[in-house]
């Protein structure tokens, strides 16, 4: 195990206590699933063997309902267990990394802030956020949270309208105080097809919004990202040659391409992710803490961004 969690007696004790609770929940849930499956099996088998249709359904319904009740009964325990995991385990583990780190499971990055960051052009119709982590690394304060933003499309079909939900973004949004002052907006988006086409139009035909494409001299950076800025000089003041290299390096370390925005002396980074972080495992043991290690690794990654982007160098008029 890493990050010194292993050697911490207090945390290991908490994990051991929670492991008992976890086993109880896991076994009740398993039992519940078995009864539900049994009920379905009985009903299907009964019908296939030619019993009058009502009889196997009624007989099958009894274990099915019992299974459902088992799940219902344990759901309170499950919620308590999940909350306790976030508070006692993740909360304590974060303190190992840095005393300043704290997790607020029910807080997040508000939808209004998400729109304000301009990381994505589409406004969300449905928005969820949780697990806000706040802290500071050296002189740089930062916070990040899980965000799931979606938009909907409504199409007309024969049977009326059909609503579909599409992801705008699912992952972690990271925000940190930037080490330079600036007034305008600079946005760095991965160079997908749509962005490349939009950039070409805004450069060659006409520009819209207040932001123009900023053509940067680092060819690797220009290949990976499209940069928009309300002020050409300011965009380059933020994206120095060294900063571009650091952003490229950060982008290489992640599975999906990142998006960045710089607004009012703060920087935002969007990391698209597949999994949900800081959730207590139910069917996996807490003792070897695989999930916990993944979570801590994610936090460590966010924490290290400050170092990696050199945000603690405070010589440009911002303390």
């Amino acid at each position, binding site marked *: 195990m890493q990050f010194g969690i292993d050697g911490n007696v207090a945390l290991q004790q908490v994990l051991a206590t929670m492991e008992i609770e976890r086993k109880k929940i896991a076994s009740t849930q398993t039992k519940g699933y078995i009864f539900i499956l049994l009920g379905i099996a009985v009903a299907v088998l009964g019908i296939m063997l030619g019993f009058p249709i009502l009889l196997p359904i009624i007989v099958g319904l009894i274990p099915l309902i019992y299974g459902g009740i088992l799940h219902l009964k344990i759901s309170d325990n499950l919620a308590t267990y999940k909350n306790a995991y976030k508070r006692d385990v993740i909360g304590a583990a974060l303190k190992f990394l840095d005393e300043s780190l704290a997790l607020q499971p029910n807080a997040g990055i508000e939808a209004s802030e998400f729109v304000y960051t301009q990381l994505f052009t589409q406004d969300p119709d449905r928005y969820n956020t949780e697990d806000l982590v706040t802290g500071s690394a050296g002189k740089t304060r930062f916070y990040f949270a899980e965000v799931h933003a979606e938009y909907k499309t409504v199409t007309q079909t024969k049977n009326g309208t059909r609503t579909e939900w599409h992801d705008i973004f699912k992952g972690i949004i990271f925000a940190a105080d930037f080490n330079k002052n600036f007034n305008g907006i600079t946005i760095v988006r991965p160079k997908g097809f749509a962005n490349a086409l939009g950039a070409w139009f805004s450069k060659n035909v006409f520009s819209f919004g207040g932001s123009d494409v900023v053509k940067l*001299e680092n060819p690797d950076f220009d290949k990976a990202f499209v940069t928009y800025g309300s002020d050409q000089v300011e965009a380059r003041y933020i994206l120095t040659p060294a900063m571009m290299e650091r952003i490229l390096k950060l982008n290489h370390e992640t599975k999906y391409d990142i998006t960045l925005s710089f607004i009012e002396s703060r920087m935002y980074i969007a990391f698209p992710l597949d999994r949900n972080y800081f959730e207590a495992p139910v069917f996996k043991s807490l003792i070897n803490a695989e999930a916990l290690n993944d979570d801590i690794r994610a936090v460590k990654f966010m924490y290290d961004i400050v170092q990696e982007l050199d945000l603690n160098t405070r*010589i440009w008029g911002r303390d």
Partner: protein
Amino acid sequence: MIIALIIIGVMFLFGIFFYNSLIGKKNQVTNAFSAIDVMLKKRFDLIPNLVEVVKQYTTYEQGTLTKIVELRAKATSGNITPAEKAQLDSELSSSMKGLMVNIENYPDLKANSNFINLQTTWTESEEQIAAARRTYNATVTDYNNAIMMFPGSLFAGMLNFQPTPVLETAAEERKNISAKELFNN
């Protein structure tokens, strides 16, 4: 007949479009150049204050200080070409760097809040000038590409658009993090 007219019309419209876009690019170059000027002025304006503060604490830096004041006077005198200005700025920068190194010998000055403030502003302006120069070079490249590539090269030749050289940076200035090394050691 009608087809010929249409072709001429389209070519005319195309010509207007191209001419305007070239003018737009040329103006961007001018604009980017004046941005450097603004940043340079900001930096030159810092010098009198900086010199005043340094003078109070140091005894052996008079020679450097006088040189810096002279360079500034020349740079802000108004009747110099942009190239001369850039040259003066780079001389000024290296004098300042020398001064900053010597300041290590004056702990009182280093601790002076006024000086620390000026020092930060100086570094800030250095980075801003670097950004302005890069912006200028980007617009120049954009403009040069437009007039040197086909079909722009046809129009540019007829309308006498000349390519503009990009700003070369002195080797010592090329590392724009040098200021940080300087102040942190």
